[in-house]
């Protein structure tokens, strides 16, 4: 992962803006079938843990399932765009949900409250098999990643309008901002559900790491303006404000704004009037 992926495999600015608004990138069926076929046995056997913060090149042996997974061009390109070259592996985990197993996880963010304004970890989630609605795929709440909440303190929120109850074809990878609210749903299907998660820590400043050829595309702002049905009327406006600040951090464009949201409330002129 230390080599820069080809530009066509990197995320575009529009896709990055979508990540800043939604808090995740979804790559449907990008993992080849032969890797998916190997994955269930490998995941069932377990993948050895690595110490927290292991450089990715040391964490996974060449040819291993995780190494092959993060070497898939679309996956490598997305990871590079988000966290840059040679990130560290925070930890990884195999999640298996048995049919009819218990209750769903409470809605949560992983680790602990993490309010870094200009850096973020990502969590890669890989689904080697098709996930159906009955199989209870991961519940994801778009646009929840900038909320300042701690782990499962959000457990009372059973359902939010516009939530994604993930269904996907085999070989799908979803990459989440560390703050995104999510949870494993109850598996009401008849087959085991598999998901492999890897959390990555960046080791470089996360600025303009993607394919920036379209940085000035008006579609960037349109992606950043998306509203989600679960946002309260007033707080939804604060989300715009906070997205602008994150986009400024990721691009270095300190005067970027959406509809004057940040500019208006930070305008404190010091210039004296001409007739003073």
């Amino acid at each position, binding site marked *: 992962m230390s080599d820069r992926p080809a530009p066509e495999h990197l995320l575009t600015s529009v896709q990055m803006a979508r990540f800043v608004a939604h808090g995740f990138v979804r790559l449907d069926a990008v993992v080849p079938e032969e890797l998916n076929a190997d994955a269930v046995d490998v995941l069932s056997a377990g993948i050895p843990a690595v110490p927290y913060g292991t450089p990715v090149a040391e964490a996974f042996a060449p040819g291993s399932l995780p190494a092959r997974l993060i070497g898939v061009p679309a996956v490598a390109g997305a990871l590079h765009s988000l966290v840059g070259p040679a990130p560290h592996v925070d930890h990884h985990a195999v999640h298996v949900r048995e049919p009819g197993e218990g209750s769903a996880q409470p809605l949560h963010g992983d680790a602990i409250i993490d309010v870094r304004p200009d850096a973020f970890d990502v969590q890669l989630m890989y689904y080697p098999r098709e996930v159906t609605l009955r199989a209870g795929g991961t519940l994801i709440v778009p646009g929840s990643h900038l909320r300042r909440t701690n782990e499962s303190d959000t457990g009372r929120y*059973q359902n939010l309008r516009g939530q994604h109850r993930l269904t996907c074809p085999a070989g799908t990878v979803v990459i989440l901002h560390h703050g995104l609210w999510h949870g494993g749903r109850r598996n009401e299907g008849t087959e085991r559900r598999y998901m492999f998660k890897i959390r990555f820590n960046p080791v470089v400043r996360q600025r303009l790491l993607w394919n920036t050829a379209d940085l000035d595309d008006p579609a960037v702002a349109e992606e950043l303006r998306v509203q989600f049905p679960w946002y*309260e009327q007033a707080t939804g406006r604060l989300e715009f404000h906070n997205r602008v600040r994150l986009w400024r951090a990721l691009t270095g464009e300190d005067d970027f704004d959406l509809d004057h949201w940040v500019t208006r409330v930070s305008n404190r002129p010091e210039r004296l009037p001409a007739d003073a």
Partner: protein
Amino acid sequence: MTTAETPAATGTLRQQVLVLYLSTSALDSGTVGWARYDGTGATTPTTGDGDEPPYPDGVAALRDGWRLIQAAQLIPPYPGHEYDVSFLKHEFLFEKLVRV
């Protein structure tokens, strides 16, 4: 959860709880989130079990017999944290007492 043991002639009551998260602090504003808990044991609501809210707003729940038992206070932001986003602010708890 509370339960009430009532005289044999009237049976036993169990509490059902409905939590609605609304778009503003007004009870008749739109539902953006919800949760249910069932003290009768007849149902087992859980995370991510539906995409459609049970009521379009808080007043619709009242009209269906739910009793409002708590509404979230309106608390000003802490100085310096005016632009922070965190939990949903407009939380309304309702109950029904159901004979079992």
